[in-house]
């Protein structure tokens, strides 16, 4: 996914991307350079005036801001803003609704022994909703210090302590922010998006729904940091920490060059009804081959298989009993 053009210089200490309103770097805490203003030449006493009525103005603890006692107007001070996140990069739909419907039919018609026969013919598609679901995508350099107990090099105890420091580079790691889709669905959809196709505005079928980010900027940063820690922990246990079994895995990460992109990713959510029950299926918005969802299970077929297995078991036991004597 193309990274948006940075409008604010990155943090001087950890090179992470900053927002225009940041007073301090959210990763390392370094103060952002203040706006340039002329230095005072000689000592003066100054009275802060209300921009509205010109009266002397004082800071008010009630209003938690400078407030004019005469006209009541409140002056905004520069603090770290925490707005609700908004998508900045949109991936277009390349699968049209007809193709999505066809993909659902293909999904229902194909394979799966336990699926009732004639599912594709009898299922009634009730709704087909194109939507963009929200996600963050981040890239970062991670300096991970770790300690853990593992079975490698263990002595009398079955555990031996290990420690180390490893550098990971994460690129284009998606972090789902959707409340409508399940985490599993998001994880299955995410790898199949064409990252080069990012656009600045939504493009897709009419009536496509946009699921908004519900997290604020600080919440988003927390979620991304949690993802960094989780991924680092996973990667450490896949070959970095010696041994095969682990416990007490402690990871401390120092991030650099963290850059987060807010994405809107296309998908279709379809609902169909089969024998009075509703089922939901998600079709990828850029790759009709990716279809996720639930299908009804044929009770008869399950019963038949269970019965078959039981009969087989009985036969085996009988045969063994015969030969055992």
């Amino acid at each position: 996914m193309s990274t948006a053009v940075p409008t604010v210089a990155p943090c001087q200490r950890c090179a992470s991307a900053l927002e225009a309103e940041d007073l301090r770097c959210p990763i390392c805490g370094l103060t952002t350079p203040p706006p340039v203003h002329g230095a005072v030449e000689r000592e003066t006493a100054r009275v802060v005036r209300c921009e509205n009525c010109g009266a002397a103005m004082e800071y008010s603890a009630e209003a938690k801001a400078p407030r004019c006692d005469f006209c009541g107007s409140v002056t905004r001070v520069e603090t770290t803003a925490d707005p609700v996140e908004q998508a900045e990069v949109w991936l277009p739909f390349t699968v049209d609704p007809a193709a999505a419907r066809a993909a659902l039919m293909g999904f229902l018609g194909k394979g799966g022994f336990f699926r009732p026969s004639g599912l594709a013919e009898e299922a009634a598609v009730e709704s087909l909703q194109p939507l963009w679901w929200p996600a963050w995508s981040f890239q970062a350099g991670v300096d991970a210090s770790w300690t853990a107990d593992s079975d490698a090099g263990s002595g009398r105890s079955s555990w031996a302590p290990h420690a180390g420091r490893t550098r990971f580079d994460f690129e284009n790691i998606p972090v789902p922010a959707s409340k409508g889709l399940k985490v599993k669905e998001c994880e299955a959809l995410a790898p199949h998006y064409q990252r080069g196709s990012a656009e600045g505005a939504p493009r897709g079928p009419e009536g496509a729904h946009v699921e908004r980010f519900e997290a604020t900027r600080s919440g988003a940063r927390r979620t991304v940091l949690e993802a960094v820690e989780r991924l680092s922990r996973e990667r450490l246990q896949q070959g970095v920490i010696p041994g095969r079994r682990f416990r007490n895995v402690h990871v401390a990460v120092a991030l650099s060059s963290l850059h987060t992109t807010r994405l809107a990713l296309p998908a279709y959510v379809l609902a169909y009804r089969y024998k009075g029950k509703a089922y939901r299926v998600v079709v990828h918005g850029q790759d009709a081959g990716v279809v996720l969802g639930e299908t009804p299970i044929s009770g008869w077929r399950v019963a038949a298989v269970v019965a078959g297995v039981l009969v087989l078991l009985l036969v085996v036991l009988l045969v063994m009993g015969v030969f055992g004597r």
Partner: protein
Amino acid sequence: MPEQFEETTVAVSGPRLHLGCPSCGAQLVVEASLRTMRCPYCAAPNVVERPPAAGVPEPVFALGFALTHVAAKEHVARWLKTRSRFTRSGIRSAEPGEVRGVYVPAYLYSVLAHSRFRASIGEDYQEQETYTTTENGKTVTRTRTVTRTEWRSLNGELKGYVADVLVTASTGLRNDELEALEPFDLRGLARYTPALISGWVAEEPSLTREQCLAQARQEAEERVGGRLGQFMPGDSHRELEHESRLEWEALDVCLLPVWVLAVRYAEGAPPLRVLVNGQTGEVHGKAPISVWKVVAAVLVLLVLVVAGWLLAQGGGR
């Protein structure tokens, strides 16, 4: 930022300033340690602006008051009522006196700490042990499971940012007092502008930058030590040693909101100083203990014990 370290600083001292009040033109006499001054004639809230001087860094941030005058007084009244019974008489019933809201200068420090540690890690294991004991007069051999610890040495590194370290920059508020008032919610941090302190008392830093830097480094080291304690694997650890290299230090002046009260509880006794976090309402103060009350309590306890013992002796006879 490297340019921040070139200054060698001295505490604020110097002549009082004589400035004209921009509202009424009267002469204001401003102490060098203060940043604000209310005109005694027209009550205009003046904020003093000074040219950048070596050793007196400009505030970068300020944390605005969120607790009102009335709320601060209520917090203190509640705090006074909940003091121990052994405090000097009059404290628990004292009325909070004059409350002053002060913006106290502090340094906000952050750093990238790169530590190397060495420790002895204890890994527990279980072992069968045979032992002999006497049962019904006979000597028998039994086995039991015992947990033993195998100690292994471990060397490693821990690299991470230590942000949000606050140390006082004022001689008026000791660092242990500031620590008692912490935490401050730094999400409410605002970039310093005269409007934030207008109408309030605001001090200039009165400790040198070097003193504060040393204190901040020490606090950062302590935090790294705490993190390392959590970071150790194994069932237990001992002999944890570490040394840290501090890189990319940054130190900025931040004005913190503190309500200061003097509580008069007795004639002739110095007033009790009580501090209130102007953001969270956390109260800190040291209520003096009455020696007489403690001695009296100990005596009463002794008398009771002796009386009880005598009674027991009497009963036992």
